């Protein structure tokens, strides 16, 4: 299953599952990265990390290590 950090800029995906046990995954879900949310990858920072995604009408920056907890399915 691909995770959010593997996607290319300008691709869209749907979240299928958020891995990880506690604090970080809870924070990810509170910010709206939950099963069924549609997420667009906007860009990666010039040094390759962190990345910017757009969801629920706002932009979120997160590190790839955090994005790798978010399992997704690509949707065009």
């Amino acid at each position, binding site marked *: 299953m691909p995770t959010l950090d593997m996607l290319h800029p300008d691709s869209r995906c749907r979240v299928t599952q958020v891995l990880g046990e506690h604090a970080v995954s809870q924070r990810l879900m509170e910010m709206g990265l939950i099963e069924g949310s549609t997420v667009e990858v906007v860009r990666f920072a010039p*040094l390759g990390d962190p990345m910017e995604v757009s969801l629920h009408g706002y932009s979120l920056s997160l590190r790839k290590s955090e994005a790798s907890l978010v399992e997704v399915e690509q949707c065009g």
Partner: protein
Amino acid sequence: MRLAKAETTVALVGNPNTGKTTLFNALTGLSHRVGNYPGVTVEHKQGRFELGQRGVRVIDLPGTYSLAARSKDELVAVDALLGHGVADVAPDAIIAILDATNLPRNLYLVSQLLELDRPLILALNMSDLARAQGIEIDHVGLSRALGVPVVPIAADRNEGLEALQDALERIISEPAPRTGNRAELPAPLNAATDEVQRVLEQAGGKLGWTPCRAEALRCLVDVDGEFEARFRALLGEEFQQAVAAARTKLPADRTPASVEAHARYSWIDDLVRRFVARPEQGRASLTRRLDALLTHRLWGSATLLLILAGVFQAIYSWSAPLMTAIEMAFARLGSGVEALLPAGPLRSLLVDGVLGGVGGVVVFLPQILVLVFFITLLEDCGYMARAAFLADRLLVRLGLSGKSVIPLLSSFACAVPGIMATRTIDSRKDRLATILVAPLMSCSARLPVYVLFIGAFVPDKRWMGGWIGLQGLVLFGAHLIGVVVAAGVLLVFKHTLFRGPTAPFLMELPPYRLPHWRNVVSRLIDQGRAFLVRAGSVIFAVAVVIWGLSYFPHPASIHEHYEQARASVTAPEVLAQLDREEAGAYLRASVLGRAGHLIEPVVRHAGWDWRIGIAVTSSFAAREVVIATMGTIFNVGDDATAGEGALREVLARATWPDGRPLFTLPVALSLVIFFALCCQCVATLAVIRRETGSWGWTGLTFSYMTTLAYFAAIVVYHGARWLGMGG
């Protein structure tokens, strides 16, 4: 019956970047108090306004996305809502401010706030922007569904504030039973919450308060969170076992946090479907276009460097004339006092102690205000998040995040405003680590010291047609060494003091907006006052103590000796030389001077004699003082600008008792490295104390830097000698 209270407390809560500060300033004007919550680095802001006959106290809580506190700093906001905070009573009403352009995520916090069963008002901020983006919110329908007032406002234009205050007045004077729609949590989660709540209620006597259902939910769901930790500490292992038992009754295939988040987001989806109509296109296209440039691989980094260079330049050059003016004003005031009073301890105390101390505080104000001005602009317009986005990768290996980049670079001008700028870092661990290394960045006060020693003792060798010179290289090295050492120190801290997982870097990149002047003015006043009052008193006190140490005992015998000498000469230059020698004799006889002799065995390892020891010791309050002190000790006089050339010559002639020259290249280099690494700045320490609220962190900064500086000076001295650079 409830007694009418003279004062009502209202808490202002919301996600970051929702315009909470703008609303706070619009409600309270520019008058408010800022304090620190005990034991945490979060600042605590209270203001007042009149509502009809009622005085209303507004508490501005730190921005938060959820009540699930994961750190002491986050706990502060939740505690204030529950009434465990500074006020010790729960607020009479809560105003939740929401960003109307970004409603779904903002509603997450609302779904938790509704469960607190306190009078609640939703202020839909930036509703003008939302309309402009084609987002239609049926606020009447939303209000009816939730059972709480929903008021559209535009805080930056003062729109909707009256309606907000009317709603507040109604909700306070006639608190109605709450009947609105709530997020429905699944039955097993509710049953388990009931179980935890029963345990908490039974323990009520031990706690001194009756925890509410929201606290029980947080204990249950936030595994290893702040609430669990708090109640475990208060109630012991038994409570921990009860929570663990309750958790086993939840479905095993998902975490409790995921169950909660799902339930809340499906509640949000339902509300958004019913009351919000938004066009397909994502966020504001202007922000998209700007970000394409400002976070671009090449142009984004170039812009960041340009902005940093601009801010840095401004701290240096805009504040320099003001600082000179302040110094001159205090010098003039000093000579005014000197003319009025006879020579003696009182005059010296007033001129060198009191005026010197006050001047030493005020002189920092221009730099602080210039930096705060830029930081507020950058933060208010949304650029700060982009700067952190661009720089994060560089700092994450050192255990920091991108948010540290501006405080650290500002510290090259002056660590005092740099440390104050760490308020924009929300992770406590990152903020403390940044504060601890900020004083290692080579600040502008070190420059004159470097220039003196490098100019006097480093040979002026040049290569490549004069473009590269040895003096310049050493000066560059003096700046670089701070960065290198800071990186090492951060790595050590990362594996010792600040062990544990890196704080998550989930950061919203808010749409670009025009900054609001009121926020800028308000921050300038807050930080200026915080520095002058809280840090200023410490700096002043230390200045007076140092004065005392360098003045007393001031033996009369020295005066008599020089009076006799003066009686036999008339030439003005000889008289002036005698005056300078007399000043030097007093300093050498003072407590500080004797301490110099005392520490000579210690500083000798770095190649210094007792006179250098005194100069270095006396500059612990402010490093640039070393030049004036050296002038006095070596009888050149303390007028640094006029005397620098003379001072260089005198230093070059100074010898050990056996006639060897005192200042050699190794000694000069050891002094340079000592000043590069040592924490010789009371203002910095006072600000660290003020920002961390702890003498422990302040002491740690002072001791690790001083220790490092001392040993580095020894290593450099012996290293340079071993390389054959002379005596």
